């Protein structure tokens, strides 16, 4: 394939912005189109947790997620995004101890922490949880800040991000990064609904994402600083993007309350809902079909896997190098 040097990216969520960033870094000419304009509440990555936790994700995800996800933190840092490298803490309440045993067996790169260890890492959890796992090498970021930073970088590099339908340009290669909206072209793409909350509490401080394991209502809390916490997230086989249900919100809030009663007094700032784009194996894909290159299927791993997906897409676009996540689309 002769490598085009001009690319038109459709979709300005985390996938589209990362692909644009990777192409621009290699000297390609890029334009972005999203009917909804700049990243905002309409894109699924707006509602993300922003945990760069490849080893924790290894509990349920397949090997490529763990391997490719390890590249994320340094990639984001390179773009000037503030990445907090304080690890992840995984805990369970006393009666769900067996969940912790299972999680430890399924994951790598963690150390056991006891009550004192937890108190040293997160003083506000002292005495509340007695056992946990500390994943020291993991990190997190603020998704909205990261999206904003990439947008700024691209604009200052001369990339246009437009909400107007662009004039067709036959010399420009189209890259489709529309996420779930690409269901019209990728029939095996499905939505996995997620509900989340944003809380404000002055009574509790956390330094790193805390995952609380539970057989029915697992929860993670990601601190955003200034008393802001993101609580996530449900995972429901549905492409619904609008209705957060009472049950889901109750479950998330109850789990947070069980972790620390101070969350009972927290202010609810947001209740968010969207659907993640996913393929049947929940792994991302790059596809070249009908002259369009598709980069999609980041599932719950948007900020974790978009960097690797973007670099592979750029490799493919500019050098023809076959990416490991490329498959033949059978329609």
């Amino acid at each position, binding site marked *: 394939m002769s490598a085009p040097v001009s690319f038109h990216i459709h979709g300005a969520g985390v996938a589209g912005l990362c692909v644009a960033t990777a192409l621009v870094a290699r000297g390609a000419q890029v334009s972005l189109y999203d009917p909804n304009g700049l990243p905002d509440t309409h894109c699924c990555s707006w509602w993300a947790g922003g945990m760069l936790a490849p080893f924790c994700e290894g509990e*349920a*995800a*397949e090997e490529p997620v763990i391997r490719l996800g390890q590249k994320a933190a340094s990639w984001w840092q390179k773009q000037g995004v503030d990445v907090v490298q304080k690890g992840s803490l995984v805990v369970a309440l006393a009666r769900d101890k067996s969940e912790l045993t*299972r999680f430890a*067996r*399924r994951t790598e790169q963690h150390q056991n922490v006891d009550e004192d260890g937890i108190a040293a890492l997160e003083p506000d959890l002292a005495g509340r949880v007695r056992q946990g796992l500390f994943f020291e090498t993991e990190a997190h970021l603020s998704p909205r800040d990261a999206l904003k930073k990439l947008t700024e970088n691209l604009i200052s590099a001369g990339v246009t991000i437009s909400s107007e339908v662009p004039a067709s340009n036959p010399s420009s290669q189209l890259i489709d990064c529309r996420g779930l909206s690409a*269901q019209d072209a990728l029939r095996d*793409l*499905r*939505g996995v*609904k997620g509900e989340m909350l944003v809380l404000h509490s002055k009574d509790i401080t956390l330094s790193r994402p805390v995952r609380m394991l539970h*057989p*029915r209502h697992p929860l993670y809390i990601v601190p955003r600083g200034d008393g802001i916490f993101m609580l996530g997230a449900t995972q*429901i*086989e*549905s*492409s*619904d993007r609008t*209705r957060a249900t009472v*049950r889901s919100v109750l479950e998330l809030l109850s789990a947070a309350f069980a972790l620390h009663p101070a969350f009972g007094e927290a202010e609810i700032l947001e209740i968010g809902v969207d659907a993640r784009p*996913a393929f*049947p*194996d*929940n*792994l991302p894909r790059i596809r070249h079909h009908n002259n369009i290159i598709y980069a999609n299927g980041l599932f719950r791993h948007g900020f974790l896997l978009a960097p690797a997906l973007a670099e592979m897409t750029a490799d493919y676009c500019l050098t023809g190098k076959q990416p490991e996540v490329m498959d033949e689309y059978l329609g």
Partner: protein
Amino acid sequence: MKQFYGTSLSSPLMLGTALYPSPAILADAFVKSGASVATVSVRREAAGDAAGDAFFQLIRKLGVHILPNTAGCHTASEAITTAQMARELFETDWIKLEVIGHADSLQPDPFQLVDAARTLCAEGFKVFPYMTEDLILADRLLDAGCDVLMPWGAPIGTGLGLVNLYGLRALRAAYPDVPMVIDAGLGVPSQAAQALEIGFDAILLNTAVAKAGNPAVMAEAFAKACEAGYLGRYADPMEPRDMAAPSTPVLGKAFLE
């Protein structure tokens, strides 16, 4: 093998479809195990519209019988509405009737269960009631029109196996001709073998497979355990006894010392 509302199943293994790491792994578990029935939760996934359609298409592609369930319902009326929704959505009158009485232990509510079963059976549903092993409850459910019973092994998701073995044997003995499925509470394949050995006709699993490190291999292990249990039952096992009886006669054995 007994028929379930006139349907013969190719395998005594029924699998739930929740909690798997991905739909691809779910599909693999069905293929490797040859499971004959897939239970699907209607309430949460569907929300009564097309939003859950992609997932349902994946389940349909498995080519197995679909047994929609009313998981998450806490009253008879909720369960009835969910069952009606399921009938439209999946074009089947099979329904696994689950009415939860206690949010923490997920223990079924026997009273609401009987009420819901009576209404649904009258509406022509083929009801698979998720129940405790209580004999009187079984009697009432059969009276209500159920032709199949689904006693629990242990509370949902605990993996404790057949906790009340005496109660389950008594239930089996009381209604020898009623098709019975052990639903919920199984954790490892040996427990499935035990269920079939003591005369149950099928087992229904979800967590034990979906949360295993390798769901497909675990599903296969359960299928093999079912087969072992079934054959063990069929072959008419010996009765346990207190007296040791050497399988090789001692008489005529050479003296070595």
